[in-house]
């Protein structure tokens, strides 16, 4: 099933956020981010139940050429991680919006869209970057 990217929210750090429930979001990085990184060879994900505050580094994605830190777009605890990436980091290259999701975070409060970009806003942001 194709992901509904239009319904996702985005950050300027090229993360996407899919709202899964009132307090649960799934997080990944966008095709733009993946493209910039090149071949991804290692994904370092946090432990389940570990807690992060918004803007704290919670994961790293390593490509052959560089390392990229991923920052938590919302505060909360890690409910689940995509353990498939441990052995198959290349899935992130192939399917950044679906099979390559990183973690699901459960927030103590209902999810707020404040400070996040809509799909359209993110696309506009990307075209600004291209200029």
């Amino acid at each position: 099933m194709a992901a509904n990217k239009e319904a996702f929210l985005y950050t300027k750090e090229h993360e996407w956020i899919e709202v899964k429930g009132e307090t649960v979001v799934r997080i990944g990085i966008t095709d733009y981010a993946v493209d910039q990184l090149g071949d991804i060879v290692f994904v370092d994900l946090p432990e389940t139940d570990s807690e992060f505050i918004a803007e704290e580094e919670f994961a790293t994605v390593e490509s052959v050429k560089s390392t990229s830190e991923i920052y938590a777009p919302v505060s909360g605890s890690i409910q689940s991680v995509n353990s498939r990436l441990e052995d198959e980091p290349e899935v992130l290259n192939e399917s950044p919006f679906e099979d390559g999701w990183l973690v699901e975070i459960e927030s103590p409060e209902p999810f707020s869209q404040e400070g996040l970009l809509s799909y359209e806003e993110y696309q506009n942001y990307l075209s600004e970057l291209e200029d």
Partner: protein
Amino acid sequence: MEGNLKQTPLYKHYKDDKIKLMNFGGWALPVQFTSILDEHHAVRNEAGLFDTSHMGEIFVKGEQAVEWLNGLMTNNTTKVKVNQAQYNAVCNENGGTLDDLIIFKLAEDEFLITPNASNTEKIYQWLIEHQENGITVENRSDEYGLLALQGPLSEEIISKVTDADLTALKSYHFIPNTTVAGQEGVLLARTGYTGEDGFELYTKWDHIPHLWEALLEAGEGKVTRCGLGARDTLRLEAGLALYGHELSEEITPLEGGIGFAVKTKKAQPFIGQDALRKQREEGLKRVSRGFELVGKGIAREGASVVNESGETIGTVTSGTKSPTLGKSIGLVLIDTDFKEIDTPIWIQVRNRTIEAKLVQKPFYKK
């Protein structure tokens, strides 16, 4: 950004093909054409073509050229025969490395020297500073481009476009003036920087685009265009030092792992000899070693290395995930007390400490 960067003869080709370019020592060059991993595997299994036109070409001529160079180079230049190449370091008085480079003996009285791109001007100035009567030194880096065809199929592929006898051409030897793909005046050397069999082709700047196309065509799909990313992972697997990482003016060639090219006992004195001899006699305080991560992650250049008690014992000089071996590998400049193979070490990567162990170089051998 690209406006200020120097362009190789293939710049137009890159732009036409919309290849992303990066600043590499002041040059606009591709990190990758499609994928570092694919390009890396192509060189290990078939063949890969690199644009290394940014490398320097300095010509040295004079009746005393052999002896004069011998006073500036760490290796013994009197041992090189015409049409043979030799790997060398150039050092300052303290033994610090100014560059590592290859010299090609063109004639009894003439050499081609090929410094790293970022060191070409420095080495040229160094040669001029030490120039003697009867020696001419010419920096012709702007006139010559360089392509490298590397990988097990290289010989077969170049054979299709040249009549030169490649089977007779041994490693670190060259044909000074041959015709490749109808292009005259190619210096064809059996050298490279990937740990595979391969060739480097020095030719006039303007001839490079034609040669590039001709080699791709001769490959019939078996020649992959490769960027700097694969060049780095390939050389690292082969355990080869890279200037600015394993070697610098603060690191001697003995420490940086290229002691095989340093003849401290050679009869003729050379710049840096006293310092290097002393270092060898007293024993090195730090050496370059290969490591492999035991824990997960990738340790990159600049990461601190500690021992069991948490004391700093070295620094990572290069690190990557080896595409061929599937392991995280790298080189570390480490205190000699900890240099033994299999010594457990710990590498600080951001907020984590990853266990690693020292292993034999090279990581990969064909």
